[in-house]
């Protein structure tokens, strides 16, 4: 198990290098550069050219990338082109907000979706199933920003229950969390449902019933535990995606998370900021996936046996 973990962590190194190269290259490819953004409006073309020369932006791609990698090897993610702030620090000042939103969203998803999926599967074809499936369809197809706006109109403007923007106090996270959680919930619900439908036919549930296990325990202990692998996979993937930030939701609710940080950085062609943020996001997401894979081993002993081989 430990050896497996170490091997997985080592595999992360080439992935991170590849991510840095691709991101650096693509942002560099985009038309325009950071100087157009940060130079004052009245700057002459000559002034701009001078600024480029000073920032080393005129060097060939290879040279610039090599310089960046040099820093990266020392664990230095560089400084923002725009405001000269340390990329690492800026990222981690935003991360708690993103984590909070991601976890709250996942919490909403799990709280609603898993029971809903189970009920849906157990009463397949009934009105309960139909309602769950409609929710699943709506949740998946409704755009985030639209749901966010609906929630704001109803719960903050009409009812005044929750603030419509910002990140102060626990109440301000409710609406963004519901917005992020709904789409996730829909996916988790559908996964739970189909996974449970696979499991409810299994012979071992009959064995459990025959020894007198109460129906609730049959479903939530014997069946759900076996249906958990796909559910955990989907939740892990969703959480990984949320770590990159929820751009629309963050925008609608003025939530200062990583998503908008990256989008703003892209818009201002702030290459070190974009590349650094994405490297860190990739690392976090990879840890998360590793955690999910380790969770598999605890859910299913047959998988554990495979890891330790």
């Amino acid at each position, binding site marked *: 198990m430990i050896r497996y973990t170490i091997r997985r962590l080592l595999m992360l190194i080439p992935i991170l290098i590849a991510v840095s190269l691709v991101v650096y290259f693509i942002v560099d490819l985009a038309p325009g550069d950071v100087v157009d953004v940060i130079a004052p409006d009245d700057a002459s073309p000559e002034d701009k050219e001078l600024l480029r020369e000073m920032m080393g932006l005129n060097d060939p791609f290879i040279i610039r990338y090599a310089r960046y990698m040099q820093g990266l090897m020392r664990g230095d993610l560089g400084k923002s082109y725009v405001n000269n702030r340390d990329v690492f620090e800026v990222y981690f000042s935003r991360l708690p907000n993103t984590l909070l939103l991601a976890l709250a969203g996942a919490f909403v998803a799990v709280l609603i979706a898993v029971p809903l999926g189970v009920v849906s599967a157990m009463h397949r074809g009934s009105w309960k199933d139909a309602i769950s499936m409609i929710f699943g369809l709506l949740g998946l197809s409704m755009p985030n920003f639209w749901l966010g706006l609906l929630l704001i109109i109803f719960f903050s403007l009409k009812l005044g229950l929750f603030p419509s923007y910002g990140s102060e106090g626990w109440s301000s996270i409710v609406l963004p969390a519901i917005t992020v959680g709904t789409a996730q919930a829909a996916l988790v619900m559908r996964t739970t449902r189909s996974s449970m439908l696979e499991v409810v036919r*299994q*012979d*071992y549930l*009959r*064995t*459990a*019933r*025959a*020894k*007198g*296990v*109460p*129906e609730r325990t049959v479903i939530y202990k*014997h069946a759900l*535990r*076996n249906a958990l692998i796909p559910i955990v996979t989907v939740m892990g993937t969703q959480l990984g995606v949320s770590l990159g930030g929820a751009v629309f939701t963050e925008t609608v609710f003025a939530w200062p998370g990583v998503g908008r940080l990256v989008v703003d950085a892209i818009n201002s062609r702030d290459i070190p900021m974009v590349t650094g943020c994405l490297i860190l996001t990739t690392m976090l997401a990879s840890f998360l996936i590793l955690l999910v894979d380790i969770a598999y081993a605890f*859910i*299913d*002993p*047959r998988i554990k*046996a495979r890891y330790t081989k």
Partner: protein
Amino acid sequence: MNSKGMTDLVLKIENLVVHYETEDGIVEAVNGIDLQLERKRVLGLVGETGAGKTTTALAILNLVPDPPGVIKSGRIIVNGKDILNQDIKELERIRGKDVSMIFQDPMTSLNPVFTVGEQIAESIMLHEEVSKREAYERARELLELVGIPQDRADEYPHQFSGGMKQRALIAIALACRPKLLIADEPTTALDVTIQAQVLEVMAEIKEKYETSMIMITHDLGIVAETCDMVAVMYAGKIVEQGTLKDVFNNTKHPYTEGLFNCIPKINDRKAELIPIPGLMPDPTNLSRGCAFAPRCSYVMKECHERPVELKRINDTHMVACHAYDIQDFHIRRRVGKR
């Protein structure tokens, strides 16, 4: 019979009818059967695949899958309790404690994510006031009892062989010393050599725990070895029943005779096997008459038209066949006595 009273009966089934109401039609799986089983006796329930044996067994636990299964009518008394009229809580107390069941396929009948010990212990904890540790300790002892080393209680089903899985299932079923054990083709999925071992374990424990048993099988050899009583099932009905001796030495029903004719004989290997011609009738479309008539070599005109009922041959022996309305009717046993 009546003088003994109900108390000596572990199981009494009256007029049990079970249908599966599927989209393709109504499967008439069990069509009015009566069965009784006295304490410490073993009843062999015999018949081809699709005869309704498993459905009957599931009905005894009130576990017929619903939908599509529906128990249309009948009464089932297990250990004095009216199974079909209990609330769910009471049923959960009865299952595993008064009656438990070993299922046909050991490969898929254990939960892959719990250790074997946990699965045995769960049964004990459900029915008895014991701590988790005590229950687990007893689970280990039970494993030993079915011939598996105690240490292996901590292992998962995938670490067990087929024969060991079936023994573990026997341990689960017997964990709370049920009054009645139903074994649904417990050896069909196993290698021949393992079959004998499993049967031996079952016989031993049955003796030790004084459990009554229903042995479901299509193997007459197993019936001969393990059973006191035999009921032969065909298309959801019992066509012949009696003591082992009645049914084996004084076979009455042409279907039972057909079953004997299609098993190899130990002392006459050259004897040719005669399979019963034809197939079991479509259970969604049963005729009014005898369901075996289309395959029966003694068939008469009225067999197709008039419903058959069980008739008494002697105190213990009953057969459902119109031919016995005729004086001096005998079936022809093909090769000498087995």
